[in-house]
């Protein structure tokens, strides 16, 4: 579906957020409501 909308550089994250968490990488509290964009920038 995303490809049809012109978003072609799509990369699925293997294992999802569970795999990310298992490596103890940072996570943040998402206090937004679903449907509202939080931010497009990545800060680590």
């Amino acid at each position, binding site marked *: *579906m*995303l490809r049809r*909308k*012109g*978003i*072609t*550089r*799509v*990369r*699925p*994250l*293997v*294992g*999802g*957020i*569970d*795999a*990310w968490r*298992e*490596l103890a*990488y*940072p*996570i*943040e*509290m*998402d*206090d*937004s409501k*679903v*449907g*509202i*964009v*939080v*931010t*497009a*920038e*990545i*800060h*680590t």
Partner: protein
Amino acid sequence: MQQALEFLLSHIEIVVFLTVLAEQIGLPIPAVPVLLAAGAVAAEGEAHLAVLTGLSVAACLLGDMVWFELGLHRGRQTLSLLCRIALEPDACVRRTENLFVRHGIRALILAKFIPGLSTLAPALAGLFKVSIGRFLLFNGAGSLLWSFLFLLLGYILSEQISYLAEQVMQLGKTAGLLLAVILGGYVLYKYLHRQKLLRELRVARISSAELKQLMDDGHPLSVVDLRGIEDHVADPYTIPGALRISAEELEQRHDDIPRDRDVILFCACPMKRRPRGWR
């Protein structure tokens, strides 16, 4: 054509059992038209509605038990196998999960009425370690309801179904051939399209370590959290900076995703989630 149809109608009990079993196992054979036809045959007094219902339920339980056991003992491998068989596995897994999150184990009943989900639901039930008793109870109820409703519909609409069958028989071989070509072409197109997409996604997949490295290097990218509202309530944490757009919202909100950079998508791992109501 006529002889073939007459043969099938005279062995309707076996046809019902085998067709329902084939569909439940995951073969692209639609059982609903056969149940409707069987209901019409019963209305003409050439079969018993109760016997047909019993055979259909038995076929459902047999096919579903295979997937339940595979889900229970083989877990992740089973889902991979289903993904290879299903024509729309991504949508299918997501819809089944949503159904389970919303309705708990009662989803086993509802899944029977949604094409594609009835095969996946027993496997997920096994994966989530549902007890065999509860599985048989809810899956049996769903199978009974599904079988009886479509047989009853065929019974009620027997005149219309008979008329339709006569029209098809008049067209003879041409109608059968045309139907086979359309169905075969559709299945082949979906299968090839699916294989192409899977190949592309296999190449494009990114590991957590690679993503972390790209983020540390300041590589321009957008991370999109596709988990739904139920996941958000259960787990309000996400990867730093991720856009939160549930899979259902993608159609409306795809403009929020930048086109000029890599887009990393993630959701919850279905193996580790256990929706409410499962025991």
